[in-house]
């Protein structure tokens, strides 16, 4: 049985910080089909279009019929652990400092044999459930989990390594004035974060929910204004080395498109808060985050972006807002590559209109901030890179995959 996590002792400031190393992350292009599935928390393998056989490792021709169409499809992840070993000597520097490390051979009910990392509660000869996870290198790996959930299974060191569980981690929520910011603070407190720093700009200005927010046990209000470089740098100077997860809750939602508006001041505000705000945040906190990617059980682990799903396809009713969101999505992709050497993940949470004042005129379904917060915490626990929260986000994602041109036209029709 997994042992529950223990709250880490305060770190000795004289102790050297262990620098991040990464496992071997190079993959064939085809194998990144697994990365796609892992990023979204799905379990997918190649299934031959011609003979319907399930195939692994990823191939470019079917070994049963030489069929060439081998799309990744969701597959039942159940199987049996038929042989295991504990690697004690590794040639790779990353594993050298993490041995002993269990791996095993899993025979999937779907057919293929899979070499997988083994969760501590798996037993040779017994049933297991495979999960695709993104490892520290950013590539997908197979992790065998016990077939039935076990107590404290999330505390397993292998899962801790592959996921971004907030428990006993220190979190920064950048804007606590918003409903989403407050919901996040609550959700991270409930998830066992040790400290939840919540940024508030212009603290002298009261805001709804202030009392409740300040009343949360782990919450510590900090001055932070993402539109002010000095404010961001100041906070990073003070707390940057103590933060393990950053959740950027800054928002700037205004209705309206491009030519229906006079001038660019609104768009500039949106870009300042969202795109430049993200840049300020990443520049100030990113280096420390990346440096601390292997800093023990509660290492720095994730940077979370909350993005309108319309970053992926513009919704002209909120056209200028969507453009700023698209800029943030592009920046997030850059950030992902820049944080990867530290083994720090970038989670993009996509969502549709929220149940907040700025979407007052938009008909339902709308997403409750608490649902978004829960989904983000859950995605971090699973170690995802992309999560689509709520019905609208799911709908847009499916329509985008099916026919982006149809989606563009339909969103333009109001």
């Amino acid at each position, binding site marked *: 049985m997994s042992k529950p996590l223990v709250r880490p002792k305060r770190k000795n400031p004289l102790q050297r910080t262990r620098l991040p190393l990464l*496992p*071997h*992350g*190079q*993959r*064939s292009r085809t*194998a990144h089909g697994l990365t796609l599935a892992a990023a979204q928390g799905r379990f997918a393998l190649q299934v031959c279009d011609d003979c319907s056989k399930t195939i*692994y*490792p*990823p191939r470019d021709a079917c*070994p049963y019929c030489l069929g060439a169409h081998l799309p990744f499809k969701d597959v039942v992840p159940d199987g049996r652990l*038929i*042989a*295991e*070993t*504990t*690697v*004690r*000597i*590794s*040639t*790779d520097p*990353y*594993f050298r400092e993490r*041995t002993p*490390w*269990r*791996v*095993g*051979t899993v*025979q999937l009910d779907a057919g293929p*044999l*899979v*070499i*997988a*990392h083994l969760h501590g509660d798996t037993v*040779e*000869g017994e049933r297991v459930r495979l999960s695709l996870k993104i*490892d520290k*290198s950013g*590539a997908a*790996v*197979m992790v065998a989990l016990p077939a039935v959930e076990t107590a404290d299974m999330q505390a397993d060191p292998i899962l801790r390594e592959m996921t971004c569980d907030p428990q006993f981690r220190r979190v920064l929520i950048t804007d606590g004035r918003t409903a989403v910011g407050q919901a996040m603070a609550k959700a991270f407190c409930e998830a066992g974060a040790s400290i939840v720093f919540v940024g508030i700009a212009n603290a002298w200005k009261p805001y709804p929910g202030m009392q409740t927010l300040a009343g949360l046990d782990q919450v510590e209000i900090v001055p932070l204004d993402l539109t002010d470089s000095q404010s961001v740098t100041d906070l990073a100077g003070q707390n940057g080395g103590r933060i393990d997860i950053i959740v950027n809750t800054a928002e700037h939602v205004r209705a309206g498109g491009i030519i229906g508006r006079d001038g660019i001041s609104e768009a500039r505000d949106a870009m300042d808060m969202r795109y430049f705000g993200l840049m300020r945040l990443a520049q100030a906190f990113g280096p420390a985050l990346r440096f601390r990617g292997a800093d023990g059980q509660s290492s720095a682990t994730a940077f979370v972006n909350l993005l309108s799903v319309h970053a992926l396809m513009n919704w002209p009713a909120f056209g200028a807002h969507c453009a700023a969101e698209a800029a943030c999505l592009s920046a997030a992709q850059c950030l992902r590559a820049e944080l990867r050497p530290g083994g720090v993940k970038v989670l993009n949470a996509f969502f549709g209109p929220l149940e907040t004042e700025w979407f007052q005129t938009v008909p339902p379904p709308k997403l409750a901030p608490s649902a978004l917060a829960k989904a983000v915490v859950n995605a971090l626990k699973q170690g995802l890179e992309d999560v689509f929260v709520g019905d609208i986000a799911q709908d847009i994602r499916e329509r985008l995959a099916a026919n982006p041109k149809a989606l563009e036209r339909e969103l333009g029709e109001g």
Partner: protein
Amino acid sequence: MALPARTARTSYDTVVACAPVTVPYTRFSPESAAWWIGRALHGLLAQSGLQIKDLDGFALSSFTAGPDTAIGLTQHLGLTPRWLDHIPLGGASAVVALRRAARAVQAGDADIVACVAADTNHVDSFRKTLSTFSRFAQDAVYPYGSGGPNASFALITKNYMNMFGATREDFGKICVAQRDNALAHPLALMKQKLTLEAYLAARPIADPIHLFDCVMPCAGAEAFLVCREETARSLGLKTVRILSTIERHNAFPEDPVQIRGGWAMDVDDLWGMAGVTPDSIDFVETYDDYPVISMMQFEDLGFCKKGEGPDFVRSHSLTNDGSFPHNTSGGQLSVGQAGAAGGFLGLVEAIRQLTDSALGTPVPQARLGLVSGFGMINYDRGLSSCAAILARSA
């Protein structure tokens, strides 16, 4: 559609193997693979009295010659062959080189083929070879603990133990006997006697693989010549005849974990073509990158049935003076694994045993030897298997 029946295989007639060469191994080497290949060819010429222009065939196996292959090395080394082969089959390289070269000589495409396997071992080359060994290794094995072949064979060994009741003592007996053989072999890197107690007490590497189950990566080269018997005789070289050979790749893909190699598909062919039976064999050189694989070879090559490997080992003594002389030079487990040259070790040793030129303890009255090869853990199992039965020339 019914395919016509397979035709009977042609014998190798008077084609022979000769001139066994070993370039003494070193744990690490600052030299390049080309240097080791060059020393091996130099050894062939020194032993045979041939000149470099006389080598009209060249078969090369090497993991560390990159970016070069056999063709680039012809220019590097001054060869002008009319028959050329690069055999990237690791532990299966020697028998495959032998059988290809033999057919080329038999058909007159070449007269004298130099078969060479050589690898260097720089301080970091083993790790680099592992991480880029194959696409499946890169995508689906190396990221899982990066235990290399130790971890892959640990899973194969564990499964074999689970299925057939082999114990660490059984594997230990194989390793200890090979060390005994190696102690008389001047080129073996392992110079200390190994006891079963020391074997059992060794540190774990990847359970159930412990230290003395593993080969030591090193630098080295092995080589031999393939030519017609009369050519060898004119050079004053002692020869061995090739009674039969087999080769198979990616056999039994349906087995969940490897419990047998391709030998099991072709074993009847091996004995049938040679016209001899397992009990007439005087010594066996298996590919021993881990003892479980040697045990599988005892089974798959027909010395006992599947699953009887442990009992077979228990009922025999495996030293050169024993009832079943096995890996008579000490094998890779005690001599060292010089990359692809590890695949040549058994064949070169067999030529020596059958030409009264053993460097270590000779097997008394050895007339027939079996050499087996195994190689290329591409994903979860070794893909290539091969074997040859060799006989002392009349």
